[in-house]
């Protein structure tokens, strides 16, 4: 593992928060995923060694929690809430709009590598349904029109990078 010095020092610091090292499994996985983008087998072995665990102890955590992924995703991560309050106000249409805009299917990386669109469960913002998280940002009342607008914005940013 080739982690940035800043990440490594955050890792060493967070381990001190707990009386047992194993408790730092989730924090370490978050830190590594934030830097690398996903959790590789190498990362699993590295975390296990760091915390004095067997790789299976880390592997079973990675495979259980929906937020950890074992493969890279698109440059931007679009998470559309699927659960009832959002669905009642058009969440499925919101998701379909993102899929169409980026020629992709929920759960897959778009052909241009720009986004991964995903359906997730309740994001605890049901009063402003339908809601979408793009990377760390929450977007509220995302109907189909607003989904189109957000897609255009992402496309424009991608264009500007080229």
């Amino acid at each position: 593992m080739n982690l940035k010095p800043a990440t490594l020092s955050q890792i060493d610091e967070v381990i001190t928060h707990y009386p047992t090292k194993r408790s730092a499994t989730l924090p370490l996985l978050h830190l590594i995923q934030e830097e690398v983008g996903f959790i590789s087998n190498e990362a699993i072995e590295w975390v296990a060694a760091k915390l004095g665990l067997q790789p299976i102890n880390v592997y079973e955590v990675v495979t259980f929690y929906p937020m950890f992924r074992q493969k890279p995703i698109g440059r931007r991560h679009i998470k559309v809430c699927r659960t009832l309050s959002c669905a009642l106000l058009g969440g499925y249409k919101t998701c379909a709009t993102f899929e169409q805009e980026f020629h992709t299917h929920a759960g897959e990386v778009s052909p241009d590598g720009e986004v991964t669109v995903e359906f997730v469960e309740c994001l605890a913002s049901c009063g402003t349904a339908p809601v979408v998280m793009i990377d760390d940002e929450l977007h509220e009342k995302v109907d189909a029109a607003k989904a189109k607008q957000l897609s255009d914005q992402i496309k424009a940013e991608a264009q500007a990078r080229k």
Partner: protein
Amino acid sequence: MPAPAQRRIIFQHIDEPGYTNDLACYVKHGGYEIMKKAFQRPPAELVDEVKKSGLRGRGGAGFPCGVKWGLLDKKSGKPIYLVVNADESEPGTFKDRYIMHQDPHQLIEGIMITCFANNVKQAYIYIRGEFPHGARILEKAIAEARAANFCGPNVLGSSYGCEIYVHRGAGAYICGEETGLIESLEGKRPYPRIKPPYFPAVLGLYQCPTIVNNVETLCHVKHIAAMGGAEFAKIGTPNNTGTRILCVSGHVQKPGYYEFEVGKITMGELLNDVCGGPLPGRKFKAVIPGGSSAKVLKFGERFKGKRKVGAEMVDYDWAVEDVPMDFDCLGMIGTMGGSGGVIVMDDSVNMVEALANINAFYAHESCGQCTPCREGSLWMKKISSRMVHGAARPEDGQLLKSVADQIAGRTICAFGEACAWPTQSYVAKFGDEFKGYADAKKTAKPGGVTDLI
């Protein structure tokens, strides 16, 4: 009669222009003064105030907070932990989010009073992974509070020290269940533990006595310390004291969060007067009163029985609109106040499709330890999805019910009940819709109807 006014105690500063989430603003508004006074008192007195207050947990079960603290094993010689349940994962619930993002110091003050009262020297805030900003805001607020000696070593210059750390979840609903949460904090899969023997108060985090409380509950502790338990108990209704935040979502004109004295507002006042009623041209059809797990209520049904008011037993005969929004009344009519998440559905919704949406949630979130829950939630999802996307049969409602009936009471944690109650109540109350779904599907849907599954 117009609906009673909101009484904002916990949400006093939420959405207030100019109110920021930093320490300076909090202190300017009198922040940490209550904690300073509380630290002058014997800890046992603070526990007593909370007992007297009648405060019931706001996370879902409504368990009396003071009683929970009283169950703590204080003689074990092991450290006592406080775990703050900031997982906010019950669908329809969105209140802790605003406390943590906009008023994090209120939570920290509540945590510190709780820790002092119970001799806790280490607290963890378990925040759901989908609140990355919330986690950063809390970490910053804790650092500010620590620098000002409101937490950390030598709190307020005393010999008492208590650290607070933020621990992020990673997208699993079952981490909201207190023993699943504890397993997750220990770095494992969040498999709930069986009770007995694993009551957190005795064998919790690292097998030590542990208090698990919801974010909103701990904020109330601050206000109980301020006004005293007896005064707090005058707010709300007997056995349902204080205020609580009701989160309304779905088909109303003005969804949002509203704080009322518990039991002082009825469902009808909340939905019609406060939330502006149904969307134009629509009628209310069903409402889930306390998060997606709570049993659904059908507009038009009536609830009759006797209940205690003061010392007397009185008859009640309620429509859905008449039901007071408190733990006991909602429990009496066969559902629950739960997490305070009120999800409203109007007459554009087909209940088979609504159930299919919820069943997909539970099938995704079952931790898989117990066969009835793992298999049952999956089959309920498969059956209800098949009804929508494939062929629907008149007997499917009964089939769904037979699966649900075999889950509740046969599992390690309350998720078993949580996933069975929607199916049981939808089929019981909207049975005709399940019987007639095959025909209903043939007729074209009215315009504007949205897919739910």
